[in-house]
């Protein structure tokens, strides 16, 4: 099937539709190409698209300190949260001390984005190690901010640049970010103030979580079959025959993305 949009554009537009006016969305600045596209670039483009359409009062909090950056001014992506390029990015506020490293715990952030190497059917995320924690086969970046992301932010989007069996596993090697262990009731007992994972975006599909906190396939992207999703997921997904196709972006949305939000093709390539 001939598509007139890219996978990144599809995910960006679907994501944008889930934001509400007046919310505060946070994203860090990830490094590494695939990770950066999914955790940083797509979320930034989606938040800006929401601001230009149904959510003009949505606030973009980039890297926890830069408020409503003018992304169209970018000529290249800052390489890290330490980068000099961020310093002169036009924006509304640069705040070092608030919400800073700590005040996000009072619930200032309505939604945020994270990633990891493994996700289980309860939405728990691992970004710490493959194998035993004491003697890992692969030591990864470590939990960093993931405990807070999935515990204290309003809701969390899990952005997975790879949809493979080894990434979606029945059991993960380290719970670095907590989803719904024991369902929504189980999560409640843990005393976490945020509502946890709400959706997972992958190159093949969008997952959501049902009222018990169990993951299900919400939609499958154009050109991808249900069997592709099943074959690349390491746990049972049930019958996917009634799952709808992920809705395509409109021409207006694509025009906004290409002409206004990302004119230099910095975010979505």
């Amino acid at each position: 099937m001939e598509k007139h949009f890219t996978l990144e554009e599809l995910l960006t537009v679907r994501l944008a539709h889930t934001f509400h006016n007046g919310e505060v969305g946070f994203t860090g600045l990830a490094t590494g190409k695939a990770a950066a596209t999914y955790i940083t670039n797509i979320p930034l483009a989606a938040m800006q698209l929401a601001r230009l359409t149904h959510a003009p009062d949505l606030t973009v909090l980039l890297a926890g300190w830069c408020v409503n950056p003018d992304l169209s001014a970018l000529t290249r992506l800052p390489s890290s949260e330490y980068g000099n390029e961020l310093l002169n990015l036009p924006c509304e506020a640069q705040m070092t001390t608030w919400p800073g490293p700590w005040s996000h715990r009072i619930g200032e952030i309505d939604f945020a984005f994270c990633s990891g190497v493994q996700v289980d059917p309860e939405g728990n995320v691992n970004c710490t190690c493959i194998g035993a924690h004491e003697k890992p086969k692969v030591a990864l970046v470590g939990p960093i901010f993931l405990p807070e992301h999935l515990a204290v932010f309003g809701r969390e989007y899990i952005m997975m640049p790879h949809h493979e069996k080894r990434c979606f596993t029945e059991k993960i090697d380290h719970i670095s970010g907590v989803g719904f262990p024991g369902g929504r009731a189980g999560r409640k007992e843990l005393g976490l103030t945020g509502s946890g994972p709400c959706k997972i975006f992958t190159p093949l599909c969008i997952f959501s979580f049902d009222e018990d906190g169990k993951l299900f396939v919400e939609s499958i992207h154009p050109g991808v079959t249900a069997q592709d999703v099943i074959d690349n997921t390491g746990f049972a997904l049930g019958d996917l025959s009634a799952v709808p196709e992920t809705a395509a972006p409109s021409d207006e949305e694509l025009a906004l993305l290409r002409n206004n939000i990302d004119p230099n093709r910095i975010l979505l390539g």
Partner: protein
Amino acid sequence: MLAWDRFRADREGMPFWPVYFLGGNDVARDNPQIVPFTCPVTGKQAWAVPAAKPDVIVIHACRGDKYGNIQIQERSMLPQYLNVDMARSCKNLIVTVEELVDTEEIKKSPHLTLIPAFRTASVCHVPFGSHPTPTLSCTEEDAAHYETYVNASANEEAFEAYLDSYIRGTKNFTEYLSLIGETHLKTLEVR
């Protein structure tokens, strides 16, 4: 970012900082030094994250004077601000600076002095002292050197070779920098 809470406790002379969000997280499971307790006020499950208690902290900054007044450009971002928190949390603070200036120069912009002289045990003039990482408003990261480092990390032999040439094979930081090369370092200066 629990590590930040450790220095936050130090900054205020507390043995620990309380956090409430580790329920179900393996970070608490794997680390016996993170101690679960019941919050005396709310009755909620909480965890005590122990203070880091650093004896010595070494940070790199833009500029300072010989007394140890340390200036960092005012729009420090979050990661850089951890340096400042750490500098305020230790017994002995050593600061390396890009530029050593006269106190009169410091007094022209006292709002940039985030660490006053009485906090600083020692100040050392070390241009490019944060290489290969960047120093905000002074130097860029050295992406090429990151790549060298990552490639060297592929196996033990390659990493030993890296250590032999850049660390063990150099007498001091000046020699390390000359290995990186003056021409290349020039390209990392923030204009």
